[in-house]
């Protein structure tokens, strides 16, 4: 079922529940992994994923189709991630370094994380980037999104995103040789 069909099912009161269920099934993995890469912990990612879909449900009737559904959903998920990380820093008065340390230790200790040492090392290097740069790196490197899609999601220019990704790659390469 494509996005147009999903939206028409959701907008029809008779098929709203079915349409929304299909939307969740279509996008749940992309949303979950997008969030998980930012918050690392499964339980946090689970909570945020549910919140994202509840927000989508609440606002989808107002969704204007001047953006793709997929980028709109990514945008909500991105906003939830950044708000969560900011709140976490504020709530515990954590300096940036402490949150980085907490997320890094989860790569080693938290359940539901596998992979070779070098892949974990790469993940730890990514965690050391500032949140927004990390987000840009993840969307480009792991999700293979185009700069144009990322620009739509983040409301940022393609040039700024290219520069951000370039900086992120340089920093990661420096972190990897430390």
């Amino acid at each position, binding site marked *: 079922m494509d996005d147009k069909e999903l939206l028409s099912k959701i907008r029809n009161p008779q098929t709203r*529940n079915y349409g*929304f269920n299909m939307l969740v099934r279509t996008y749940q993995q992309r949303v979950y992994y997008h969030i998980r890469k930012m918050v690392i912990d499964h339980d946090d990612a689970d909570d945020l994923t549910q919140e994202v879909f509840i*927000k989508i449900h609440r606002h989808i009737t107002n969704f204007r189709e001047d953006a793709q559904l997929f980028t709109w959903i990514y945008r909500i998920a991105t*906003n939830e991630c950044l*708000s969560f990380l900011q709140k976490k820093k504020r709530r515990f008065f954590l300096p940036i370094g402490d949150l980085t340390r907490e997320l890094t230790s989860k790569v080693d200790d938290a359940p539901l994380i596998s*992979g070779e040492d*070098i892949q974990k090392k790469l993940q730890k290097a990514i965690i050391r980037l*500032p949140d927004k740069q990390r987000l840009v790196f993840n969307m480009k490197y792991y999700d293979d999104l185009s700069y144009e899609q990322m620009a739509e999601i983040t409301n940022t220019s393609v040039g700024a995103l290219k520069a*951000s990704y370039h900086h992120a790659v340089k920093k990661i390469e420096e972190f*990897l040789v430390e």
Partner: protein
Amino acid sequence: MKNFENIPKKLIFEAPDGYFDQLPGIIQSRVAVQSPEDAPKPYLRYAVQYALPTVLLLAVVATFFLPRTPKSAEALLALVETEQLVVYLEESDIGLDELIEAVEFDEPVVSAIEDEVYNQLLLEDLSDDSEFDMNNL
């Protein structure tokens, strides 16, 4: 390892077995519980925007300007058209803060106002671009 692109691209994160089979049902049940109560209520917005100041104004009028009137505040309220009160409020110097101070709310009214404000914040939050100002990365 200088070039990270030599590292095989693999996501190290996993979800629990069956997680994506169960998630749609969990979300659907949460949405079903929240939908009737949490949906924005247009009548509540009008209540906050017009009826609440109207009631507050009448309470103030009844308390300060008509202390010896034989008619009750309810009877006075019935005599005044809502539109007239709205116009009066818009043109008067009485602020909402002053009106609110003059009236004691009971718990359900406070809760209804908070719900309305919260719904409005969510709407604003969704259209807020501040999180995405990435030009200073």
